[in-house]
Each structure stands twice: as structure tokens, then as C-alpha cells.
């Protein structure tokens, strides 16, 4: 199976980011069709498509849409989660920069289906270019009656606002994003069963739908071509339908976004990205920094699909696929991952706040050549104390890569702790390591 371009079909065409170009390529037919359908029929066709959330968790989109109150007692809100922060992922950025109307159309359809009159696109603050592209597209859509009051003469109102983040990975978590949107610190809120679902009480305690950029971008195609058609994509997998954009980076020749059908193998994805650069494949982080790392042997047999990935003890995640060559020191790679989570933990719950920092402190010690016997076991113990105990998924996401790496590459950790230096010993590995860690690589 090769590349299957659906969302990214026209991503290289600058015209596609303008309303004229978008309409010329068949844009807004999905919305046109949706507005002629019953609201429930729109949701049903999303259900038929088998679309699952593309942000990382893979939660079926229609359940959220269907779960929202049918009677309006409070205003309903749509949120687009464009706070892409997962290391290794850059698909939402490209979608917003090159195909902004797909996002807008998807949200408008969602707004119609769930009777929301207001939508917010929460874009991470660093993505100024993406923000500008969205701004331009939204303004254009307003000017031409695709947003605002009485869209396309259907009597449906939908307002879309941009809200930017200001630098917090945690705000990619949906409830933390809502906190941030409400002007609070980006800390997660209580979730079901501890509190009502966002579809009952989300933003400002009103029913709220929150989906990823890529999820919304799929919706116009589903409405245009039918949910059943969409469900034929990726039919070879157990329960993953459609296409998925993978952001391929690391030691590959052509890093970039590649859209593939579910059921494609990981190696095919690597081929699309031009194959390995600078050495043999050693390991791969298939779905963003949060998912466990897999070794070369597992890469060979990995199939892209939510359930299929679990067979190699990893996940599709948000699609940030990092390939690492043989010169990569896994310990140092995990050290940097731990630093990321220690810096990005919001501090709300104990296991994540203290655990991520402690893990980083231990790994930092190891990378400085001061590892103590038993450190690897201690790390595994700490990951067990964090995993499933933290308030939101960030704790789990911080624990998995560490636990996964120690499971897959135990010998590298043992060697580093025992000898105070890395098992990988080459000019390339030295080039990756920070200055103060050089002694461990020479």
C-alpha cells in the first residue's frame, strides 16, 4: 500500500488555502450536503465512517457528537484542538497552514450537527504562521457567508474564534485546553466518572465538543463522499478506518508529513520518507514521544492501526513517527524525553509532578556517568508508581517511554550505569550528545 492522499491531496497548492481555490477543488460540498441533512443524519454518517480521534487517544468521534444534548438549554461550543505539542508531530501545523478551509468546514459541519453556534480554534502560540493562515481563511469565510450568521442561507449561525496558547504541552490535553481557554492555568480538569463529560459540562460548564485538527479535516470528506466510503479505507485493519497523517522525522532522508491508509506497514512509511539516513534502523518511536519505543525487529512487523500497533506494545498516538539510526544512544534519547516531561508537567498531581522530575534527575545522573547500581530498576518502579496514578494522561505518557525503553533496550541502560559511558560509541553519537555529556561518548 502506498501513500493515500486525502487530506493532503492539495497541500502543495497555495491556491487551496484561498476560498476560491478551495471551492474549485470541491470544497464546501460536504457542508452543502450536511446542511440539507437532518442533524442526526450527519452524526450517523460520521458514525458509519468509523472516524476515530486523531489527537492521540483514538476515541470514536461520533460518540462525542452524539453525546451532546439534543435540547438546547445552554450554549453549545465546538473546540478545535490545534495545540499540537507532541514531540515528533507536525501534521496539524501543515493542515492549518495549507488546508485551513478543511478545518473550518469540518468545524462548521460539527457546529451544525451539534447545534453549536460558537467555535474556538485553540492553536499553540508558537504556530504563528498557522494562526495567520487560519485567520486569513476565517476572515475570507466570514466575508463570503461561510461563517457568521445564516451560513449559506440555511439559517445556521456559526462563529469561529482563534485562541492561542502560550507555551504549554499540557494544554493539548482536552480538559487542560479548556482550562487554558477559560483563562486559567493549563491544568486538567476532573473527568468522567469524576465529573460529567465535556459533552455535558465542558467549556464554561456548557456542552462542548472537542476534536483534533485532523479529525475535523476528515469530516468534509466523510460528508461529501459518505461515511460508508470512508469506512472502506483501512478496511484491512481491525478497527481503524480512513487515512492517517504521519509526521516522519529523525534520521530519514525526506522528513515530512505522509498520509497513509490504515493497514500500511511501518516500513512502507519509512520508504515513503526516503529511507534511513546515516546508518541502519535501530529503533522507532511510532506515534509521538509519549508512546513506547520499538526496536528494529518490531518495526519490521508493525502495521499502522490502533489495535495493530498494540501488538508491538506501542501505539499510533498522534502520528509523530521518529526513526532512529544505529548511532543513537537510547539512554540519552530517553534522558531528553524525560526532560521534556519534567519541563512540561503542569504540577497538578503528585505522581506526575514529583515523578517526572525524579526520573529526569536519575537519567541526568546516568547520562553524566554517575549512575548507581539499581537505577534502572528504580526507574521502572517509578514509572509503575506514575502510570495510571496521575491525574491526566501526561503522567502515563511520561512513564511509558521510560518503561518501554528499559524493556526494549535493557542492555544499553545497564552498560551506561555500569561503565559510566554509552554503549554506542561513534562520531555520530558524539554529535548528538550535549557538551557536558561528551565524556560518556568518547
Amino acid at each position, binding site marked *: 500500500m502506498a501513500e493515500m492522499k486525502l487530506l493532503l491531496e492539495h497541500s502543495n497548492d497555495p491556491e487551496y488555502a484561498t476560498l476560491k481555490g478551495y471551492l474549485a477543488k470541491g470544497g464546501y460540498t460536504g457542508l452543502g450536503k450536511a446542511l440539507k441533512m437532518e442533524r442526526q443524519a450527519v452524526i450517523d454518517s460520521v458514525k458509519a465512517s468509523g472516524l476515530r480521534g486523531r489527537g492521540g487517544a483514538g476515541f470514536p468521534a461520533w460518540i462525542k457528537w452524539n453525546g451532546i444534548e439534543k435540547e438546547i438549554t445552554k*450554549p453549545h461550543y465546538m473546540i478545535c484542538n490545534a495545540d499540537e*505539542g*507532541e*514531540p*515528533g*508531530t*507536525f501534521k496539524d*501545523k501543515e493542515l492549518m497552514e495549507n488546508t485551513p478551509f478543511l478545518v473550518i468546514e469540518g468545524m462548521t459541519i460539527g457546529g451544525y450537527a451539534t447545534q453549536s453556534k460558537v467555535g474556538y480554534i485553540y*492553536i*499553540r*502560540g*508558537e504556530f*504563528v*504562521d498557522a*494562526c*495567520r493562515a*487560519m*485567520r486569513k481563511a476565517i*476572515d475570507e469565510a*466570514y*466575508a463570503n457567508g461561510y461563517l457568521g450568521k445564516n451560513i449559506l442561507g440555511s439559517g445556521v449561525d456559526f462563529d469561529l*474564534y482563534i*485562541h*492561542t*496558547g*502560550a*507555551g*504549554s*504541552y499540557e494544554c493539548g490535553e482536552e480538559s487542560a485546553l479548556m482550562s487554558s*481557554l*477559560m*483563562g*486559567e*492555568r*493549563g491544568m486538567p480538569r476532573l473527568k468522567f466518572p469524576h465529573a460529567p463529560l465535556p459533552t455535558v459540562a465542558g467549556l464554561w460548564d456548557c456542552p462542548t465538543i472537542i476534536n483534533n485538527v485532523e479529525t475535523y479535516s476528515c469530516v468534509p470528506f466523510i460528508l461529501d463522499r459518505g461515511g460508508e466510503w470512508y469506512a472502506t479505507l483501512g478496511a484491512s485493519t481491525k478497527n481503524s478506518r480512513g487515512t492517517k497523517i504521519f*509526521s*516522519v*522525522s*529523525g*534520521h530519514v532522508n525526506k*522528513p*515530512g*508529513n505522509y498520509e497513509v491508509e490504515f493497514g500500511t506497514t511501518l516500513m512502507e512509511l519509512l520508504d515513503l520518507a526516503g529511507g534511513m539516513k546515516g546508518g541502519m534502523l535501530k529503533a522507532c*518511536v511510532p506515534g509521538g*514521544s509519549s508512546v513506547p519505543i520499538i526496536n528494529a525487529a518490531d518495526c519490521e512487523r508493525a502495521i499502522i492501526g490502533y489495535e495493530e500497533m498494540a501488538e508491538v506494545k506501542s501505539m499510533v498516538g498522534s502520528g*509523530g513517527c*521518529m526513526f*532512529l539510526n544505529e548511532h*543513537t544512544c537510547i539512554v*540519552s*534519547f530517553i534522558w*531528553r*524525553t524525560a526532560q*521534556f516531561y519534567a*519541563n*512540561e508537567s503542569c504540577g497538578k498531581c503528585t505522581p506526575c509532578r514529583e515523578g517526572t522530575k525524579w526520573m529526569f534527575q536519575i537519567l541526568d545522573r546516568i547520562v553524566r556517568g554517575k549512575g548507581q547500581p539499581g537505577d534502572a530498576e528504580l526507574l521502572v518502579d517509578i514509572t509503575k508508581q506514575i502510570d495510571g496514578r496521575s491525574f491526566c494522561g501526561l503522567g502515563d505518557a511520561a512513564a511509558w517511554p521510560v518503561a518501554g525503553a528499559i524493556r526494549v533496550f535493557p542492555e544499553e541502560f545497564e552498560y551506561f550505569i555500569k561503565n559510566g559511558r554509552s554503549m554506542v560509541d561513534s562520531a555520530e553519537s558524539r*554529535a*548528538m550528545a*550535549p*557538551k557536558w555529556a561528551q565524556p560518556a561518548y568518547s
Partner: protein
Amino acid sequence: MSETVAIGTPRPRAPRPEELDLKFSESAVAELDALKTHYPDLKSCILPGLWIAQREYGGWLPPEAIAEVAFRLNRSFAEVEGVATFYTMYNTAHKPGRHMIEVCTCLSCHVCGAYRIVDYLEEKLGVKLGETTPDGMFTIHEVECLDACDRAPVLQIGDQYVGPVTSEMVDKILDDLRKVETPSAVQLSDAVVKVHLRDGDK
């Protein structure tokens, strides 16, 4: 810090609203007013309000800026300070140099040699990460993933991403930046504020 203060000694208190020295320009106030229409409550304007303040106060958020945002949005000072210090893109600790060079060293950039860029910058500018050059021109920072891993190693300068970066490019970037007058944090804040505002708001 061990500050021994006798019981009952009054502590320095936060400024009263009437003591604040408000610095928002008229257009900034207009922008904030336009933003207020985007949300059902004032609290939600804290983040955009802080962006405006960061621009108005020259690229960072001194305590007075935080107090002004809090005053204009009718929130407590502490609450707004809590929000401002949570997010890394608000410069609350100290005023950065004219240009902030933010080096991503996270995962993909790490394996693509971001630390060599850090070394090069440190050597070239003679300062460490997080420090500002003595002439106040550059501040270098290490940041977490900028999500431009296809361009690793990547730098963020103002509202622009630059990557993949090499040592030679760094020289050119620094030379070009010296000619730019607008501080990068102001430029970034301004760009962010602008994207919030609709055609109708302007």
C-alpha cells in the same frame, strides 16, 4: 532566604488599583475590548490580554504588566500572575535581550544535532543558555519541541521558525538579526494578538 521579621510588622503590600501606572496604549485597550466580545466572561481574556501586555511592555511581563492586565480584566493579581508564570512564552522572569533565539533540543532536534547548534551559539555569543549577551542584543533559550521536526534542528526567532539550521546559517541569522530593530518578543506578541482579531474587530 531567611528574612526575620518581627510579628506584626507590616509587609509591603500589592498596589491598589488607583496606584497602578497604566501603560496600555489606546489601540491596545481597543484590542482588549474587541477580545472581550469573543468570550462570555472576562477571565478568558487573560491569555490574550497578557499577549497584549507583553507587546506593550516591550517584550516581557514585569509585575506591573501583570497587575495592569488583572486590573483591566477585574481579576486578582495573584491569579493573573499564576497564569502568566505557567506558560513559557510569557517572559515573566526578566527582560530578554532584543532578540530571543530559542533552540529546540527536543527529541528529533536532539538526534539531528541541536546541541551542536547550542554549543555554537554559546561560543559565538559568549553566553550560556538562558543568558543575555552583555550588549543586550541576544538571549538564547532552550525550548521544548516546536513541532517542526521535519526541519530539525530548528530555531524560533520571533514569529519565525528557521530550520534545518547549520553553524553557517547561524552566523548569517545573527548578522541579519542585528539589523532588525523590533525586539523579537514584541514582534511575536504582536503577531499573536493580531491573529486573534477578526476583520470586524480591527
